[in-house]
């Protein structure tokens, strides 16, 4: 199973424009990351709060609904966040948006 996981991650990493992947668990510990430690920690800390807020908002508007995906697009890059079940894990990647 772990091999499959590794493979999947590698596949995503090899996609065009992907700068990095970070996998964080529910406690905020980055499990896997292709970036250096300090950036990883920074991203992990900041994204967590954003995710909570986004999820809360979606649930607020419609309690049956749930957040499936979150994209944050900025001038220089794009961060894509996928929350997992029970906030167990989410991974995000930073991709350079095309045609800036």
């Amino acid at each position, binding site marked *: 199973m772990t091999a499959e*996981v590794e493979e999947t991650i590698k596949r995503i990493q090899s996609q065009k424009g992907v700068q990095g992947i970070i996998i964080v668990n529910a406690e905020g510990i980055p499990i896997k990351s292709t970036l250096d430690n300090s950036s990883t920690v920074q991203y992990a*800390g900041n994204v967590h709060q954003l995710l909570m807020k986004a999820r809360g908002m979606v649930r607020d508007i419609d309690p049956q609904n749930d957040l499936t995906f979150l994209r944050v697009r900025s001038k220089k890059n794009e961060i894509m966040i996928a929350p997992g079940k029970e906030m167990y894990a989410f991974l995000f990647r930073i991709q350079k948006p095309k045609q800036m």
Partner: protein
Amino acid sequence: MEIVYVYTKKRSEFGRQCNFSDRPAELHVDILPDISLAANFTVRDPCNVTVQCAEEMSEHEVNTERFESESRGINHVEGGWPKDLNPEDMEVTIRYRKKVEKDEHYQNTIMQIAGLMEHCCKQNNATDIYQEFFEEEDDEVVEESEEQPSAKTINVFRDPNEVKRTATSLCWHPDGNHKLAVAYSSLEFQRAPNDMSFDSYIWDIENPNKPEMTLKPVSPLVCLEYNPKDSHILVGGSYNGQIAYWDTRKGSQPAEMSTIEHSHRDPVYKVIWLQSKTGTDIFSASTDGQVLWWDIRKMSEPFERLVLDPSKKGNLDNALGAVSLEFETTMPTKFMVGTEQGLVVSCNRKAKTPAEKIVCTYSGHHGPIYALQRNPFFPKNFLTVADWTARIWSEDIKESSIMWTKYHMAHLLDGCWSPVRPSVFFTVKMDGTLDVWDILFKQNDPTLSLKVCDEALCSIRVQDNGRFLGCGSQLGTTTLLEVSAGLCTLQKNEKAMVSEMFERETKREKILEARHREMRLKERSRSEQSREDEGKEADGEESTEELVARAEREFFDIMEAEKKKEWNEERQREKVKDEKGVCEEKDFQEEHETNGIANAELVSYSDHVRNPFYFHNLMYF
């Protein structure tokens, strides 16, 4: 009941002149009270009257003292590690991580998420979902929708001292524009209170509560400039005539000050950094009539001195006091000085003798020239702000400005060009308004006029990007404003249109100048023939007493002429009154008007010549 009064006049008497006469008042109708009417009414008893018994209250507004806040941030450091784990320890963390990875739940989740992620990735790669269509056309559409020019206040920096001083000069930090250095002093002669602080501040524009750094000079600073090459060095000219420079890395005390004996004798109104290889040269101007050049490494003595004597003799008593300086780095040999007397003196640095240093003067203002700046795009044209007007000059025309604003109700105290748009400039007035002028859009009025504060605005500086500007007021409040995008983006063809406009106005002035010269020559030749004794010399060689006597004579002559004219007119009017008769109001008015215009035209010809404002109106309307 109706009360009617009938006015009658015989038809044959229509059109006759009205003869007014006085007579006492006549009573036409007198209605006496009729007591029998009271029978239709009954006396009301009781009457309802409302009375309120409550405490008198008044409304007051209270504003709390400024709440000082500081921004602090918290950094998220790795967290979430179980208590027994030491996050610094690499092995332990790796082991923990591996353990998590082996967990099945983890793996399932990852597979799920990964699928989702891949889908989005591929989506992104397939098409750019945020692509902007019609990008070029968008720009045009935006321009046509003509956004109203506007400016809004972003931040206000108040003088933290109890005793408020005027913010006399501002300077933006050369890189990054996040800091603003403001010089505070009280320019009112001997009216500065004893406990007034001498400090000047450097503000960080994000934090209006507390200045970032204090500069403590020996005497309050009147002007302050950052070194454009080294942003840690600032030089300031102080009220007592000394120049001091600071290094912000070294602290609040000046790094070095000029010696009192060799400094100016009056407050230093402007200091500018020069272009030099060492980047340490400055020059300063003051109302004592001197312009001094210094090297900040050796502040004991200026290395050059110029006395602004228009007679070119270097006589300090005759010298004009300087209030502003102008120096453009693209023209390093020339510089200009704006004087207290309203003259702009253009000088050449490289001249061999002090007499040759002063090249020419431009006259036209009635009061001290508070601001002098060349147009950043067209250095041949410069802006001066003085008395109640702002004027644009061309270097070639020395007799008058090529364009000028109307005379305002309040003094204009400072002004500057926008560094990004050649047709836009800003001025500030004594009643606290900021005017933004766009000469391509409207020449008679400012494009935008904004009341920034109730007290006088004494200084203004625009940031290099043309978007933000800071203005300082008399009570030490510096306001940071942002102008709308329309005023700080270069329009199409703007440079070409502005240069055309300047050329056209310059040509017009040249033609006028030529005409004036011709007329003056004619007059002079005429007067020389008829009055050889008086020997008139026009160029400032008359002593002041003679000048005063001549001015008096001319004034009285004009007064006499006016009086005579008015008297003649009165006589004429009275004559007309007797002859004409009825319905003469209209005629009278017309007569008066025609007389008025004739009067204006009869006002001495020399006034025409001297008043280009009037002439300009005649030509263009």
